[in-house]
């Protein structure tokens, strides 16, 4: 069994253990409603996390996702309050906007060879500002958060049976992406571009285009999440999602996708997202003082990653040692 598989099992086990502990600590944890809201939370982060996983696989980073969420929601409310267009027209437009932003990020990163972190940090600022500028204003020019009444749009915040639509979308997107990464050439190219760009180029992969594509997908995911967020809250705010980057990053990294690129997959990200969502949801059940909660969350994140990294390191050491011994036996045989 591969190292990553074992790690995943451990994490899943941990997930379940915490779940059980929580449901003992507080009976209301294990109610349908709560679990569904938990999933809803996880899905909102998770959709963004899927795009972000691909970014990490290319050894990049995208700090602008939060701002993309903000501006997308602003685009939507502008359509809603200034036009009569139906949702199935302006939602695709908004999503396209997300892709466009990703394309811009990718453009600066690939053509100017700029570090991803800073480029996306810059676009983050620019988008956050733009979101405020295009935000719907009242007659005195004050930003005013529209209470969305567009039925079609709001229906996205609804549930099918007990399950929220966003959760279903998250699962579908996750499976599709995983399949895409493992079973299509484009997906393989992303791994290649992340593991060893030079080699990828030599093998005839257009790395730049691959990267731009990845950032577009990340933008798309953020935009998608934004729409569900707005639908859930029945409004859109220019500060939506800003600052949520760190949650997303934590989810993906705990899911076992490293910053070094070339490895990682969506299953891990799903587990990671659930993990963070579970902690965030569970912590509210323990009746802790709100001051202690960030300490616990930060602590758990760091401990988990420390253990994870330690285990991975340990396992690899063992593997290489074994390999060396095997090689020597081979030499004997030869």
């Amino acid at each position, binding site marked *: 069994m591969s190292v990553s598989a074992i790690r995943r099992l451990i994490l899943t086990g941990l997930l379940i253990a915490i779940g059980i502990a929580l449901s003992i600590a*507080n009976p*209301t944890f294990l109610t349908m409603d709560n679990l569904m*809201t938990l999933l809803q939370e996880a899905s909102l982060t998770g959709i963004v996390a899927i795009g972000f996983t691909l970014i990490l696989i290319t050894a990049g980073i995208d700090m602008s996702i939060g701002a993309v969420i903000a501006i997308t929601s602003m685009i939507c409310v502008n359509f809603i309050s200034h036009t009569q267009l139906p949702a199935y027209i302006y939602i695709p437009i908004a999503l396209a906007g997300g892709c466009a932003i990703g394309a811009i990020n990718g453009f600066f990163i690939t053509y100017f060879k700029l570090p991803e972190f800073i480029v996306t940090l810059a676009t983050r600022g620019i988008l956050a500002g733009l979101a405020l500028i295009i935000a719907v204003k009242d007659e005195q020019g004050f*930003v005013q958060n529209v209470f969305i009444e567009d039925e079609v749009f709001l229906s996205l*915040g609804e549930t099918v049976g007990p399950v929220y639509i966003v959760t279903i979308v998250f699962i579908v997107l996750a499976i599709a992406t995983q399949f895409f990464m493992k079973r299509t050439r484009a997906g393989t190219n992303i791994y290649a571009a992340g593991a060893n760009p030079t080699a990828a180029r030599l093998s005839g992969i257009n790395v730049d285009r691959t990267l731009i594509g990845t950032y577009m997908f990340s933008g798309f995911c953020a935009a998608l999440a934004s729409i569900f967020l707005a639908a859930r809250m029945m*409004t859109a*705010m220019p500060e939506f999602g800003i600052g949520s980057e760190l949650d997303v990053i934590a989810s993906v990294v705990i899911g076992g996708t490293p910053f070094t690129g070339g490895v990682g997959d969506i299953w891990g990200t799903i587990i990671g997202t659930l993990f963070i969502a579970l902690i965030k*949801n569970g912590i509210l059940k323990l009746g802790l003082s709100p001051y202690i909660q960030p300490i616990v969350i930060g602590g758990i994140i760091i401990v988990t990653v420390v253990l994870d990294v330690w285990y991975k390191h340990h396992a690899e050491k063992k593997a290489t040692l074994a390999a060396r011994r095997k090689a020597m036996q081979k030499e004997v045989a030869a």
Partner: protein
Amino acid sequence: MAKAKWMVTAAALFGLACGAASAQTVKIGYLPSTVGQALTQAWKTGIENTLKGQQNVSFQALDAQMKAEIQVTMMDDFINQGYNAIILQPIDAAALTASVKKAEGKGIPVITLNTDTKLPHAAVVTMDDEGAGYMVGQEIGKALNGKGNVAILQSPPGAQAGVEREKGFRAAMAKLYPDIKIVGAQNAAWNKDKAIEIMNSFLQVNKQLDAVFAVNDNMAEGAMIAAESAGRLGQIKIWGFNGQKSTLALIEQGKITGTAYTNAYDQGATAAKVALDLLSGAKKKGSKTEVITVPPFAATKDTVAQIKPEQRW
């Protein structure tokens, strides 16, 4: 047949469980925009003092960290945990309406503080930000007897409470004192050191600046520091909003001109009382939101003495 029986028992048990639960404790949740603010702290104290008297009432406060998304999540959590009443300071009216609707739909009365939401709910205990802003406008107008330059230290665009206050203030200026010029309005993000920075640039641009209205006390104190270090504190009337202890002290020292004070303890207590009454059935929930207004009080050097120590938060 057997199935039916089984279901009945189950239902019975469930009912029993619920009954037991409700008989035991009443859970009241408090969800301010952020726990890290003098105002929300004072509300908390007010609420807790009221609930102390009651036996078998449990109380939990959560921190929405100034983010509407998070506040909505936490509303959901209160609902899912079957809290019996929620005292909420909505970060944004529109953003929280959905959750409030959901709670009320589940029969959980929601009492909002200061900011109302778009749909009717149990009650709103408000100091009426807009009205108080208007009052500050009047005070400054009087003090400048109708002419001069005024600057505003704003809250972040879209932060409703701040916007209401500024609207009220501007309304007063427009209506009563057309000769007073609003020479600048900048966002200091509720934040003291940002307020210092921006106040500095106000002082740079306006060689003659007569008054500053900061939409919360924190920023007012920042403005004060800047004005003081520029040696122009004397010529500038600085008005804050909320009336937290530290600011009242500064008013007594004459460093800050005034602030729109509300007795946040009372406000919190009132909210708690409403909640309890609704739960005990002493009060019936109306079809539309019951509005309880806590009148703002213009605290200045002359009037601040009327605020007793135990009313200061």
